[in-house]
């Protein structure tokens, strides 16, 4: 009863907090909608039974693997922001003598409520989105009704997302329960440990060995085994990227720090270096997506250039490009949402600091530029770096297709540019939160 009463009191909106309810709710809605559509897509691809049926199924699973990382990242960001909104008040409650159980129950209840509202809205939105995705043509015909997953998928997605949010909220607020006076006192930045390099080498070696022995796997378990091995190798590469990526960002961060002359550059570079893993988590999912997009984009363009007369092959090439564009757009959309949510959380975390920076005369534009740069610089490194890496890997083909079929590559490049713009938009959306907070920070009637 006490929990419900307090939850009702906490649910009352207070000025600047609107964004902290709205953003996670929207993020949960996007996650739910994207997950439902992606699962629907996988179901639809499994109904394609033409000569390329197996390839379509493999590609559907590949897209699913690629989209899992940004989905999880966005879901986590939404849950963290949803929980953070209550940090201060919960800390106060704790100091007033509320039990750990009460604080935890309130946190989980409120975050779960926001997640449920968002997820339910997302499920409703997917009802409107699925028919649109059903218009997409694959294997020579529209996906149509095949994109509708079974009803239980809708419920399963909502329940999973709400449950993940509840767990994330409980874990995220452990600090409030343990140390109600908790102050940010980070001494040293979390280090991207070099010892992991060994694990990276071992995992890569295993992946290369497994993909080099596909014949053996085919003999043992047939096509299913081959697909499983390929997906596992792909997931392993994603995991490796998660280890190598922060090290690469760290290298860039040091260069940015060395060259920084203006306050925004200095703060942004230090911000990236302060928690290079967090910087990577925010944009890292785009590394593989960008690499795969350019890799397949060039491959498809090359296939079309060589003018294969096999209609099934030509159809498959076009469908792969459509799939790549879809995966790119969805990944960027989720990263943009995650950036928006993470930034709103970061601004709220540092409300007193931003108010004090305003007092010492730092223009809001400088504060905004610093946080913008701290996101966009890693994003550009990851996206453009991965795209260039793919182009380099396929170097002779890249030049060839650039000369003979530039349109195919231009579509991928345009998608990447739009995606980067989308993330920039995600940042712009949170600027009013910063401006409001700085303005509110100076109002103190004592």
């Amino acid at each position, binding site marked *: 009863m006490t929990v419900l009463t307090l939850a009702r009191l906490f649910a009352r909106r207070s000025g600047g907090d609107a964004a902290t309810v709205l953003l996670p709710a929207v993020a949960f809605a996007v996650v739910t909608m994207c997950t439902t559509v992606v699962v629907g897509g996988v179901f639809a691809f499994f109904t394609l039974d033409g000569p390329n049926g197996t390839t379509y199924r493999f590609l559907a699973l590949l897209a699913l693997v690629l989209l899992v990382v940004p989905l999880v990242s966005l879901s986590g960001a939404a849950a963290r922001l949803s929980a953070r909104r209550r940090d201060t008040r919960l800390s106060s409650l704790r100091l007033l003598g509320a039990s750990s159980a009460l604080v935890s129950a309130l946190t989980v209840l409120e975050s779960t409520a926001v997640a449920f509202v968002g997820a339910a809205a997302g499920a409703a939105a997917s009802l409107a989105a699925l028919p649109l995705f059903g218009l997409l043509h694959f294997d020579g015909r529209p996906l149509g009704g095949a994109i509708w997953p079974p009803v239980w998928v809708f419920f399963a997605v909502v329940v999973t997302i709400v449950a993940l949010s509840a767990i994330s909220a409980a874990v995220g607020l452990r600090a409030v329960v343990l140390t109600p006076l908790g102050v*940010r*006192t*980070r*001494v*040293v930045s979390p280090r991207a440990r070099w010892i992991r390099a060994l694990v990276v080498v071992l995992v890569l070696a295993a992946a290369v060995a497994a993909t080099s022995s596909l014949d053996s796997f085919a003999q043992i378990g047939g096509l299913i085994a081959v697909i499983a091995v390929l997906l596992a190798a792909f997931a392993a590469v994603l995991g490796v990227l998660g280890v190598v990526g922060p090290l690469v960002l760290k290298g860039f961060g040091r260069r940015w720090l060395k060259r*920084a*002359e*203006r*306050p925004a550059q*200095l*703060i942004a570079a*230090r*911000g990236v*270096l*302060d928690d290079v893993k967090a910087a990577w988590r925010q944009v890292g999912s785009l590394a593989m997506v960008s690499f795969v997009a350019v890799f397949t984009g060039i491959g498809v363009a090359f296939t079309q250039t060589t003018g294969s007369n096999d209609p099934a092959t030509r159809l498959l090439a076009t469908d792969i490009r459509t799939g790549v564009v879809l995966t790119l757009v969805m990944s960027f959309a989720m990263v943009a949402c995650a950036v928006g949510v993470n930034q709103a959380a970061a601004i709220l975390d540092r409300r*007193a*600091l931003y108010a*004090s*920076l*305003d*007092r*010492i*005369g*730092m*223009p809001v534009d*400088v504060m905004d530029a610093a946080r913008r740069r701290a996101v966009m610089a890693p994003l550009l490194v990851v996206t453009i770096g991965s795209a260039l890496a793919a182009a380099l890997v396929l170097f002779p083909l890249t030049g060839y297709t650039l000369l003979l079929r530039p349109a195919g590559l231009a579509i991928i490049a345009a998608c990447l540019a739009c995606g980067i713009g989308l993330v920039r938009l995600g940042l712009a959306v949170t600027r009013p939160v910063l401006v409001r907070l700085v303005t509110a920070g*100076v*109002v*103190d*009637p*004592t």
Partner: protein
Amino acid sequence: MQNLIEARSLFKDFGTTRALRGVDLAVAAGESVAVMGPSGCGKTTLLHTLAGIELPGAGQVLLHRDGGAVDVAALNDRQRSELRRTAFGFVFQQGLLLPELTAGENVALPLLLIGRARADAEAEASRLLAALGIGDKAAARLGELSGGQQQRVAIARAQAVQPSVVFADEPTGALDSATSAEVMTALLASTVGAGRALIVVTHDAGVAARCDRTLHMRDGVIVETAVRGSAAAAGAAS
């Protein structure tokens, strides 16, 4: 002594609450003034209004500079922000420094904001930190510093642009009494000792006792002024 900053008949309302009721105040170069009073008496509002963070509902805040007096309240938001960057220094209760920057970079920040080259700004920051006895901490992260050391970094930051006036809002509020005394010594030496005006909002009578004057506020009015070394209160401030 020449007045550096003056408040004339300051009024300030927050909704239906009147936070300042005709406050008059003048602070001279090399003078330190403590502002005391119960919570909600208007002392922080007075500090914010003097610093151009808040605009008064009525009255004037005059900053005397080489080129003449500037009415802070008549400036627009951008101009007041520039004034805070160039003419004022601030020390807050919790330091409120950027945790991702080193101590030296935090001190250099105001200089970077006014366009100084980074190497130049960091050299000046090192000099200021050394003057406050923590020259060896320039490359340290804030989490590696004690509360007192962090406040010294904040004091160094407040001196970076060589401001005319330094505003301190409960600068020792989060420190123990011994550290508080040390920080106050550093603050006075680097402000009043360098010919600047220092205005301190504090609840600590020990801190106030080290300032040249102590203003006691109640309900938005200065009700009493005590001058150091003088046992007699001067009554309501003029």
